[in-house]
């Protein structure tokens, strides 16, 4: 009896699987936890419901670093997913491994889907492209650092959000301190105060066109402008105009959310989370300040966040499914949904226009700040950077910046250390590519 039951169930199960066999299944590994993960699942469900030929399964693999490591390990074992989300710092690793992925430009063209890089907004276009400006990874959750501020706090102090760091130091911060606030915190020193610092001031970050043209690259971090910025930062910390709560993202965001810190530098992608949190005060956002002493014509920042890569070694049908999913993702409606739910910027001009014509930015002016900043005039050094072992280089920056801010090291010694260690890692990476 028992045996018959089992046999029947197995047979029934077999039938259902054959019934749906015509469907092509693909997997998608990502690093979007919490609310973001639910939005990703929603988009996957929408894609599955929109047609009958393909079915995508999103799988959450932990942090960005963990997702990349899992992807690499699975690739070496031949068990890799069709799509993997790789973050900005991992770009050189995944793009350097030619043969691990199919360039998104080729994937779309081979599957008869129109692709024009000029459909994408300017700050998004080239970060995940190769040195010939061919798009390798498809920008997915694209964000850029912006400055959030507590409207109530600024009103109480009688100031407006600062445009430059000079204004912050002389007007905004002292007034906010007077009003009983800690004026400023930030959540990611390498991303906000290093990579985007170079981009915002159009300074060269690494040799060989910021590393895009060759792996034989040297980092150019020992630059007087950024050293002056960190000197100012540690002075501000001493004067109570800035606070640093460690390297963790959340530890620095929390005091802003609790209303102790008046202004916080975070990601444009933090917007969705902040809106849902019911903060107890009104907030808005403005562009990343710049130093007037360095430039009077600040340039655009580039995207952070992550991109989707189509992994190679899959059948033509599965690649077709991946291409169709990419097409679905870049559609203006999908992009607008993603943008509205999370705060990540819409990656195409069409999606941006869809959001604007729907009145999204009249309701939430802060949601537009990131896109405006990404579409500012470009410069020679604003397209991004491409450096290998960059995860470790960021860790070195975090370590040395932490030492500056806790008084363990001085600015000159710290930047010298970052330069030396980063260049040693870049030289090692160049050898792995040989």
């Amino acid at each position, binding site marked *: 009896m028992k045996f018959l039951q089992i046999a029947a169930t197995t047979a029934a199960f077999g039938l259902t699987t054959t019934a749906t066999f015509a469907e092509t299944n693909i997997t998608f590994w990502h690093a979007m936890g919490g609310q973001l993960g639910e939005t990703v699942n929603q988009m996957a469900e929408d894609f599955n419901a929109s047609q009958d030929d393909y079915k995508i399964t999103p799988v959450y693999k932990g942090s960005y670093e963990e997702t990349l490591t899992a992807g690499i390990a699975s690739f*070496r074992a031949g068990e890799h997913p069709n799509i993997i989300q790789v973050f900005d710092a991992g770009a050189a690793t995944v793009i*350097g491994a030619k043969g691990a992925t199919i360039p998104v430009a080729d994937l779309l063209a081979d599957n008869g889907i129109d692709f024009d890089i000029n459909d994408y907004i300017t700050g998004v276009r080239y970060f995940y492209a190769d040195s010939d400006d061919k798009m390798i990874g498809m920008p997915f959750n694209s964000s850029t650092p912006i400055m959030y501020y507590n409207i109530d706090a600024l009103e109480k102090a009688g100031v407006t959000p600062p445009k430059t760091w000079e204004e912050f130091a002389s007007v905004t911060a002292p007034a906010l301190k007077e009003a009983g606030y800690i004026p400023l915190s930030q959540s990611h020193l390498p991303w906000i105060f290093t990579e985007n610092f170079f981009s915002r001031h159009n300074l060269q970050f690494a040799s060989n066109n910021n590393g895009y043209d060759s792996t034989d690259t040297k980092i150019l971090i020992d630059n007087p402008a950024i050293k002056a910025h960190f000197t100012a930062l540690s002075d501000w910390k001493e004067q109570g105009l800035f606070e640093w709560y460690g390297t963790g993202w959340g530890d620095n965001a929390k005091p802003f959310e609790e209303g102790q810190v008046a202004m916080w530098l975070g990601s444009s992608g933090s917007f969705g989370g902040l809106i849902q949190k019911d903060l107890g005060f009104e907030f808005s956002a403005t562009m990343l300040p710049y130093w007037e002493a360095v430039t009077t014509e600040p340039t655009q920042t580039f995207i952070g966040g992550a991109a989707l890569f189509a992994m190679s070694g899959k059948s033509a049908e599965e690649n077709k499914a991946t291409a169709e999913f990419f097409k679905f993702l870049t559609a203006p409606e999908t992009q607008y949904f993603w943008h509205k739910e999370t705060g990540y910027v819409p990656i195409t001009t069409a999606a941006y226009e869809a959001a604007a014509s729907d009145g999204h930015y009249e309701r939430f002016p802060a949601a537009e700040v990131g896109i405006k900043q990404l579409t500012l005039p470009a410069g020679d050094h604003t397209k991004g950077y491409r450096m290998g072992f960059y995860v470790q280089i960021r860790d070195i920056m975090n370590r040395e910046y932490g030492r500056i801010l806790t008084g363990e090291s001085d600015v000159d010694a710290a930047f010298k250390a970052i330069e030396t260690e980063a260049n040693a890692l870049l030289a090692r990476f160049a*050898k*792995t590519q040989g």
Partner: protein
Amino acid sequence: MKRAGFTTVWLPVALLLPQLMIIAIFFYWPAGWALQSSFYLQDPFGFGSTFVGVDNYTDLTNNGEYMRIAWFTVVYSALVTFFSLSIALLLAVKADNVIRGAKSYRTLLMWVYAIAPPVAGFLGILFFDQRNGPLTVFFQTFGWDFKLGVNYNSTATAMVMVAVWKQIPVNFIFFLSGLQSIPRAVREAAMIDNRSATGRFWQVTFPLLAPTAFFLLIINITYALFDTFGIIDALMKGEPGNNPMTLVYKVYLDGFRGNDLGGSSAQSVILMVLVLLLTVFQFRLIERRIHYT
């Protein structure tokens, strides 16, 4: 005395085989791979690989930061071993003297043993929370600007405290059973010779505990070196930053976060050598001088 033996060679070999295979598959094979890849620089995805000789090792010795981490590991292991052994010994001696309610005391003291290292780490995060952690507040009342994840020394202190707290129960159990196995007659004889309890402890009880203490010393050093990984990982909250770390954690960071397989392999080979030396030290130098009863 008659020696028991096997009639054929194959039976003992067959009986040993499963164990030998486990050692071969889970230790020698990966260790061999680690040794081999420590001489190469490899593309993470496995496409390119360059033989670099001992470069991975010389890069480490030339790296001031690696030396700093090695030094922290030594200090950290010494502190964790010293405090977890001494506190556990004190508790064991006191618990051994308790007559009424002895069982409940012992159970309460052993309780912590059941907590997994990452959970201990998360409890540490609660206790050392930057703003309202009870221990943070406690340290700050003494004027210490204690901030977990910000100041190097604060994070190091938290790591040592959590690791010690987690290890005390194991040491306690061993010390207590060690104490209870000291014959009653010996203690009573000592009582006549020496009226001072402290004197009796150091002259009679402690030497008799030496085998237990030595065994625990080795166990605690390996615990501090390797098994505190979960605690350190939890207390760092995913960002190494300017936090202190041990050599094992560095292996993990470079290999699994940074995807530098060659460099990470070289570091694990160094750790293997370290464990080898520790084992030699254990068997050659100390075991000879300690008498087991």
